[in-house]
C-alpha cells in the first residue's frame, strides 16, 4: 500500500516490487511473513527475542534448572556468599537465591501475561465499540477513559490492590484495571481511521453486517498497533507488578517474585548486596528485552516498511 504513491519511490518502489514478485513466486508472500522477515534482520530485536525466549524457557523448566529447592529454609546457611552449592548465595532465610530467581520468573512473567490478557479483554471491546459506534457512545466511553487517565496509574493501582487485599492475582487485576485505558484509546483511534476507509464502505455496500465488518475488516487492521503496544508495555507491566510486590501487595511469602525479593533483600543491602542486585538485574534485563523486541516489531509491522524490504 502506498509504495507507488509515495514521492521519490521510483527506484526503491521498483526494487520492492521486484522483490515482492520474487517472494510471491516462491510462495512465501503474506503480510505477517514479510513482517517476520524484517524482524529477523533487526539484530537488537533478535537479542530481545532471544533473552525473552531464554527467560521463558527457564520459567517453564524452573524445576530442572534450579540447583536447590527455592522454598527450603536453612537458618544455618543465612546470607551465604556465592559458592558452589549456592551459585548466587542465599537470602536471609538461607534459601538459594538462584533457584528463587528462576522460580520468581514464573510469577513475574505469568502475572504480566495474565494482566495483559485481562487488559485486552477489556480494552478491545471497549475501544472498538467507542470507535465504531461513534457519536454519543464514543463520548460516554471516552469520558470514562479520561477520568481514569487523570489518576496517576501506580497510585490508582495501589488503591485497588489495597482494597482487594494482597496477592498476586489481585495485583494483576489492579494493574489491568489501570492500564487498559491507554489501549482503549489507541484501539479507538485506529478503529476510527480504519472505519473511514473505502473498503469498509465497500463491505457495507456488499451487504456485510456491522459485526461482520468489525470482525473481518476492522479488528485485523487494529491488530498490529495493539501487538506493538502490548510488547512495549510488557516491560512496564512487569515493573508495575514488581513495584506492587515490592510494596508488599503482590506475591505473598514464601512465593518467590522478583519485586518481593528486592524488598526482602533491602534490609541486608550492606551485608549481602547480591540479594538486591540479582533480582534487580533480572527485572531490568527482561524489561529491556521486551522494549527491544517492541521497537523491532514496531518497525517490522509498520506498513510503510514494505518499501524498504
Amino acid at each position: 500500500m502506498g509504495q507507488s504513491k509515495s514521492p521519490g519511490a521510483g527506484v526503491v518502489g521498483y526494487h520492492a516490487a521486484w522483490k515482492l514478485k520474487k517472494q510471491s513466486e516462491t510462495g512465501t508472500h503474506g503480510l505477517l511473513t514479510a513482517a517476520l522477515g524484517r524482524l529477523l534482520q533487526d539484530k537488537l530485536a533478535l537479542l530481545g527475542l532471544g533473552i525473552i525466549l531464554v527467560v521463558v524457557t527457564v520459567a517453564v523448566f524452573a524445576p530442572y534448572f534450579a540447583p536447590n529447592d527455592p522454598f527450603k529454609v536453612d537458618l544455618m546457611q543465612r546470607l551465604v556468599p556465592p559458592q558452589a552449592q549456592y551459585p548466587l548465595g542465599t537470602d536471609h532465610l538461607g534459601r538459594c537465591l538462584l533457584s528463587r530467581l528462576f522460580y520468581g520468573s514464573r510469577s513475574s512473567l505469568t502475572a504480566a501475561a495474565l494482566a495483559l490478557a485481562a487488559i485486552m479483554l477489556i480494552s478491545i471491546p471497549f475501544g472498538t465499540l467507542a470507535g465504531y459506534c461513534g457519536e454519543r457512545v464514543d463520548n460516554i466511553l471516552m469520558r470514562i477513559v479520561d477520568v481514569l487517565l487523570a489518576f496517576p496509574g501506580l497510585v490508582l493501582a495501589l488503591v485497588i490492590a489495597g482494597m482487594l487485599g494482597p496477592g498476586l492475582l489481585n495485583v494483576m487485576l489492579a494493574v489491568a484495571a489501570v492500564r487498559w485505558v491507554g489501549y482503549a484509546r489507541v484501539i479507538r483511534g485506529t478503529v476510527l481511521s480504519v472505519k473511514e476507509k473505502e473498503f469498509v464502505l465497500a463491505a457495507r455496500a456488499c451487504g456485510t453486517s456491522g459485526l461482520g465488518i468489525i470482525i473481518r475488516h476492522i479488528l485485523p487492521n487494529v491488530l498490529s498497533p495493539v501487538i506493538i503496544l502490548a510488547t512495549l508495555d510488557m516491560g512496564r507491566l512487569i515493573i508495575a507488578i514488581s513495584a506492587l510486590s515490592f510494596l508488599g501487595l503482590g506475591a505473598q511469602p514464601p512465593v518467590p517474585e522478583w519485586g518481593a525479593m528486592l524488598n526482602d533483600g533491602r534490609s541486608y543491602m550492606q551485608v549481602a548486596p547480591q540479594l538486591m542486585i540479582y533480582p534487580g538485574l533480572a527485572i531490568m534485563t527482561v524489561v529491556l528485552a521486551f522494549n527491544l523486541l517492541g521497537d523491532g516489531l514496531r518497525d517490522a509491522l509498520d506498513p510503510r516498511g514494505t518499501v524498504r524490504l
Partner: protein
Amino acid sequence: MSFVPVLKVHNLSTHFQTRHGVIKAVDGVHFMVAAGKTLGLVGESGCGKSVTALSILRLIEPPGKICSGEVWLNGYDLLRLPAKQMRQVRGREIALVFQELMTSLNPVLTIGTQLTETIFSHEEVSQAEARRRAAELLAMVGLSDPEGQMRRYPFQLSGGMRQRVMIAMALSLRPKVLIADEPTTALDVTVQAQILVELKRLQEELGMAIILITHDLGVVAAMADEVAVMYAGTIVEFGPVAEVFDCPAHPYTRSLLRSVPRLSREELVPIEGQPPALLNLPAHCAFLPRCPQAGAECRGDKPGWREIGPGHAAACYRAFQSLPEEARCG
C-alpha cells in the same frame, strides 16, 4: 425498444446538516434505468453524483440524511425497507464499484478472502464452493491465474487488477443493478478502455443495468445509452446519449461539452465561475450565475422540465430559445 425500468429513483433528496446550515447535496433527483441499459450520470466534482449512489443503497452516514424520495426496485421502496432486508439488497440486488483503488480493498486480507466474504454474507455455501465461484468471477473479469490471484494481497496487484477485483466482487451475486462510481478515473487510458469493454461485455452477459457515474464525457459517450447531467444536486438534462450529445439543450450541458478537449478544435472553453456552494442555494436556477444565456425569467422560480425530443428533456426556461438554429433537432 422496450423500456422496462428495474430501478426508479423518484424525487430523491439527501441533505447534510452542518453547523452553518443545510447542504442540499442531492435535491429532488429523478431517473430510471432499464435492464441491460446503462445510464450515465455526469457532472462536475461535488455536484452530488456519489451521494446519489450512496443514497440509493442507504449508505449515507450522519450528518447526512435522506430527506425524501422513493427508490423503487422489484416493487419495493428501498428507502422504506427494514434495515435487515436492506442489507440483503446491498450486493445481491444493487452492487457498488468505487473509484478509490488504494483503499477499496482491505490491505490485510487476501483477494480470495474478500471475494468469498461477499458470497458468504448472502448465501449458505461451503468454503470450497465459495472459492470455486470466486475463482470463476476473477476469470470472468479477465484476470489470468485466478487461483493465484486469490492468494495475493491487494498491495501485490496493479491498479487495473484491483479495479477488476472490485468489479468481480460487485458482480459476485449477479446484481440487477451495478452502480459504478468513477470506475476508471484513477486508471490510465489503456486500462480504462479494457475495463470499460469488460463492463460492457459483462453487462450483456448478465443483463444488468449499470449506473455509470463519471465526469468523463468520453466514457459516457462510449458506454451509456442514456445520460443524466447533474448540476448542484439536481438533474438538469436527461436523454438518450446521442440526442444529448448532438443537441444539448441545457446551457450547462453545452458548456460542459465545450470544455472537453478535442483534436479538431483549437480552443478549450472553460465554464466561467465556480459551481455554487450547496449551502443555502438560491430559489432560482442554480446555474444562473454562470449561464451565458440567462434572461429575466431565470431569476424567478426554478425552471421545470421541458421536452426537447423523444425522451430528451432539460430543466431550463431557455432550452429552446437558446438553441442555435442549425443545432435544433428536436
